[in-house]
């Protein structure tokens, strides 16, 4: 049973993946706090570590082209265990959506609208996202190429504008931190931005693709998003030097430092625009996935009446997740990567192995 009948092209999937990863490129403080001037190395390591799992993701999509994650779990683990795992994924998707919604509200509150309550901003975002979610995957992903291009242009422009403040010596010394920091950093990068791509297992039945195309789209989307994350980290370290770990949003400070003559300065509004734009995209996609997961789990044919209910749940859940941004940062560095590993790496790997052993999916009888 496919709930959303809309279909997108594999090229749109590429842009969607790129946009999804780019949104994490702007909030790198959780990493720079741990690995400081070596964060760029950790981003590379994280990408390399995640590559086999990206292949695994593409393979699962190609193996089960007509089934989304919930259906795959049902088929591989059976109706009982499959449903339990499905419910666990529902919690994962809802948590992911709420965390990102809270991030967006906290960022907007902390930088542009200091006195506006965070739930009010979350509510506005959910109301707009709900329009896209109701219309389905086509509208959810429609603007991803535009968002990706705007983000790339803005980031490239900002890099050129701060090139005069970029110092190569800020990257030195390298590999002087304890090995634990590199391991922790790599784990964070592999699970938090990259591993979250597991959400695409809920969307791939709506993508028109061949077995080869799906891996290509995933890989190129991953490459564009990963490169953005890497170049953003490089730029921030090169400009901010040993102060990079002091700031909660290093990229915002980098944009604030732009000063080319008396007229080109104070460009942080550009950063705010792209961050809000990209996070909005990520939230909308995750919101769609959460709604789709509920519908799939409870076999609801039309999810339209669920949209605002799930949106409200996301807002309230987001409010109760963390008591403060500091607790959230600590959790992102210590707890979240461990829990996320189960959903993003362990279960998909086990599913793949079991599917291979059980020779799934079984060919449908004529």
């Amino acid at each position, binding site marked *: 049973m496919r709930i959303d009948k809309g279909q997108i092209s594999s090229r749109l999937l590429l842009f969607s993946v790129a946009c999804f990863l780019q949104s994490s490129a702007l909030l790198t403080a959780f990493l720079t706090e741990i690995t400081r001037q070596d964060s760029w190395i950790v981003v590379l390591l994280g990408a390399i570590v995640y590559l086999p799992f990206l292949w695994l993701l593409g393979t699962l999509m190609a193996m089960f082209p007509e089934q989304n994650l919930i259906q795959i779990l049902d088929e591989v683990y059976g109706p009982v265990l499959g449903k339990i795992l499905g419910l666990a994924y529902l919690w994962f998707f809802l948590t992911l959506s709420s965390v990102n919604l809270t991030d967006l509200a906290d960022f907007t509150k902390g930088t542009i*609208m200091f006195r*506006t309550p965070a739930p009010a901003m979350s509510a*506005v975002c959910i109301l707009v996202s709900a329009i896209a979610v109701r219309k389905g995957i086509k509208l959810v992903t429609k603007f991803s190429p535009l968002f990706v291009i705007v983000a790339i242009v803005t980031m490239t422009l900002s890099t050129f504008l701060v090139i005069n403040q970029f110092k190569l010596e800020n990257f*030195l010394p390298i590999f002087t931190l304890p090995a634990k920091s590199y391991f922790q950093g790599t784990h964070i990068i592999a699970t938090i931005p990259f591993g979250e791509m597991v959400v695409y297992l809920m969307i791939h039945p709506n993508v028109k693709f061949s077995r080869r195309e799906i891996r290509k789209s995933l890989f190129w989307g991953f490459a564009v998003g990963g490169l953005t994350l890497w170049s953003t980290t490089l730029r921030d370290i090169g400009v901010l030097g040993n102060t990079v770990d*002091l700031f909660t949003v290093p990229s915002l400070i980098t944009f*604030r*430092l732009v*000063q080319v003559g008396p007229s080109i*300065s104070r460009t942080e509004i550009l950063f705010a625009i792209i961050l809000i734009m990209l996070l909005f995209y990520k939230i909308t996609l995750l919101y769609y996935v959460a709604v789709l997961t509920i519908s799939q789990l409870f076999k609801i044919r039309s999810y339209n009446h669920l949209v605002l209910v799930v949106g409200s749940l996301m807002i309230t859940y987001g409010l109760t997740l963390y008591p403060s941004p500091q607790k959230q940062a600590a959790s992102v560095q210590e707890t979240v990567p461990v829990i996320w590993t189960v959903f993003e790496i362990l279960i998909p790997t086990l599913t793949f192995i079991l599917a291979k052993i059980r020779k799934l999916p079984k060919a449908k009888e004529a």
Partner: protein
Amino acid sequence: MIRKAVKMLNRQRLSLIATVLLASLLITLLSGCWDNRELDSLFIVTGIALDKAPDSDLITVTLQIGKTESKTGASSESGSQEDKNAIILKASGRTPLHGIKRLNFNSSRSLFYEHNQAVLFSSELAREGLKEYLDFFLRDYESRMEVPVFVTDGPTDRILAVDLEQEQSAGMYLARVIQDLSKLSPYYKVRMLDFLSRTREETVSALIPMVAAYDEEDLQKLQICGMAIFKDGKMLDSLNNYETLGYILAMGDVKLIGIEAQSEKGHVIFNTINLDTKRDVKLRQDGGVQVKLSVEGALGIGELKGFNGMDFPKVIPELTKMAEERIKEQIAETFEKAKSLEADIYAIGSEIHRKHPKKWEQMKSSWGSVFSNIDLTVDVKVEIPETGKSMISLEMEGASHEDR
């Protein structure tokens, strides 16, 4: 069938009306009223100064407010005073924010820091240490990291209250002066971010431009009078403008500065066309450090005096020698002062840390004494390709018609 179509149309129309109404409602209710900040309700801060409060452990926070209109909501009784071009608000507190919060009690407008042009610390406060006062600037969302910092020679409130002819406020004046100086050499400008960065490196000494106020023919003026030397967040001493130039030359990337040289034959002022310094830091076997500075550049003649009777081809080698000696001497003098203070203003320790992190761990604890024993070699090579509009001066051979 027709009835059904009409019903559908009505439903679509109703849906459109509902959407428009909802959108209007949202625009009205969620238009950011919580964060509305109108210009007439703001005090735009153009300068922040911290000083030691007289006869107490507190600090004095002085804010300079750019005037947006003639009448303002500031009370003139409790700690605020109006001057010609800007308003000065002053309060004491345990920390910068504590002082600022107190200011809210005698001001009818909210303070807006996004356009702050300069942060000033008094030399008295700087000598006691600034680390504990930087947190506010680091944490506050409106406080900008690119704002230039200064140390004042004398009370800070006097500097901010100076009524300048050239600019509306002292904060703006200082920001422009330092912007102009940064075109000569980037090392003149020290932003809050640079100060924080250097303060975080335990063994590196930060430098901050110093500013002093003086009176000249009934006019109040401000001038940059050197650079304050910091070690571990505390001001140790200062460099005068001459010594500062020695530091600037040692750091390189010099764009356009004047270098003055004198010999028995005459006096000359050179304008640098470009001048760069390459630094080679070597660790010696005995645990010491050897630093070689190679200065290379092109100079133009700005002004000549003397060199009587000499013809131009002979003057150029003489001038080259004078320039090279002068640059060498100036760099060495400042270096000696830094060595005597054990203040690594050149960030040589950072360079060793970056290039030899393992050896640095062994040297770090005794860096002060290692730095004070650095073996410095300065190698200067300059050319003088520009002479200005004239090749000769009136005192030189061939200048007079009778010589021809």
